[in-house]
């Protein structure tokens, strides 16, 4: 076992343990903190794959921005373990059914999937220059379309946020 494998296993244990912590902890703040730790472990995996750009963007976007907003909302609403509403039987049943359906789909997809092993030679595609070249030449159309998608989501959020205001003035 080389240092690579050791790092891989440590990160994997952290990632899976923290992911379990997200769904098992009762306090939403702890869930968010576990999720942040999971993102860090996954970023570590990206680093092992020499995808430095992906690793840091994962931290900046998910751990640094989105999770801060999550924390923000939870703090503002002051959610706590004891005020968490109990879910009804029907909702629980629906959860089990949809979760089982997802499991089925995943199993069906993974049954025939191939698992190509990673090349042992250092792979340079994850470095920012190579990634940028690929994104802006080979994949320029999907890249731009996805940015339009984000823009529309942003405008949608603003429209929903503004709605109440316009009814008041009208």
């Amino acid at each position, binding site marked *: *076992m*080389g*240092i690579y494998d*050791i790092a891989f296993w440590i990160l994997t244990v952290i990632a899976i343990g923290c992911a379990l912590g997200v769904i098992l902890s009762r306090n939403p*703040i702890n869930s968010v*903190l576990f999720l*942040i730790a999971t993102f860090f472990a996954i970023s570590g995996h990206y680093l092992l794959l020499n995808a*430095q*750009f992906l*690793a*840091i*963007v994962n*931290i*900046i976007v998910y*751990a*640094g*921005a989105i999770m*801060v*907003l999550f*924390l*923000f909302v939870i*703090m*503002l609403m002051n959610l706590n373990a004891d005020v968490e509403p109990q879910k009804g039987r029907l909702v629980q049943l629906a959860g089990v059914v949809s979760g089982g359906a997802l499991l089925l789909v995943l199993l069906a997809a993974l049954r025939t999937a191939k698992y190509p092993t990673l090349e042992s030679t250092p792979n340079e595609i994850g*470095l*920012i220059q190579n990634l940028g070249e690929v994104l802006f030449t080979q994949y320029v159309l999907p890249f731009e379309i996805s940015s339009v998608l984000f823009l529309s989501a942003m405008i949608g959020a603003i429209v929903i946020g503004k709605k109440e205001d316009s009814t008041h003035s009208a």
Partner: protein
Amino acid sequence: MLLLQVDMAFLIEKILLITVILFGSLGIAMYATWGERKVAAVMQDRLGPNRAGPLGLLQPLADGLKLFMKEEIIPDRSTKFLFILGPCLSMLTALMTSAIVPWGPDFVAASGHIFTLQVADINIGVLYVFGVVSLGVYGIMLGGWASNNKFSLLSSIRSASQAISYELPMGISLIALLMMTGTLSLREIVQQQHGFWADGYFSWNFFKQPLGFIIFLTCSFAELNRAPFDLPECESELNMGYHQEYSSMKLGFYLFAEYINLFVSSAILITLFFGGYNFPFMDQMATSLNSPILFTLICVLVFMAKVICMILFFMFVRWTLPRFRFDQLMKLGWKSLIPLALVNMLITAAVILLFFNK
């Protein structure tokens, strides 16, 4: 376990460098507190700390000792784990950024071994700074929330929204700079600013990106929670701020982390815009000195002098400008700085495309 062998010389060199940087930043942060009080005193026509030692130079030690001796109080209704984690995270993220700052040029020892005065030259350089900066807000948020005090919570929410809002113009203003340098590595950015004058123009990025620098500087004031953007510590509205419930060295950690942040962000600003360790006529000096170690030392000193000037600038601004109102702060960030940064980016892109397109 055969593959676990690591280059011991490399490891020792890096650990030594990390230790020096760690204690260096702690020491500078310590004396930044003294400097701040002296600057405030001079600007307000007072004497400032002058009792402990000559010129009050032992004041930071006395302050630190006082904080250590104070009683440690953890509020009864607080979330204990997060209450303790808050200041730790603040300190950790404050110290982490210094890993990628190039403190001086490489120097080749007589044995041919190259010493690099940078802990890690990573491919994503500047983005690493952004990653750490975006994590810095957790220390404040968790600490403020865990205190179970509404003023602390309000303050930490202010701090988080301020940090998120100002990260955007900061990033966009930096994109313009990165388009010119073509690299994210801080080391290469510094090397491109070699000397002072190259190809008939100043080589420092400040002269190529003045607008970008002003936007970046404004945003760093906001990210550092410093006046005029120190809304999270607005005493008149929030009693004290996110560290209201903290006592003893935990409070010290929060206050100290701010000064470490001040030092490191000054170092980053100097590295990005003011040529890092470069200074005019450095090549002539290198050849006339003919001693690589001495030359490297001079470069490090020049870098430190620039950083201290930057810190002094931050202090002068703090004691000159009044605090903004929160809505003014948000308006400035979203309605002025972001459009300005976008225009700056567009102009830079157009200039590069029209005149420097090779």
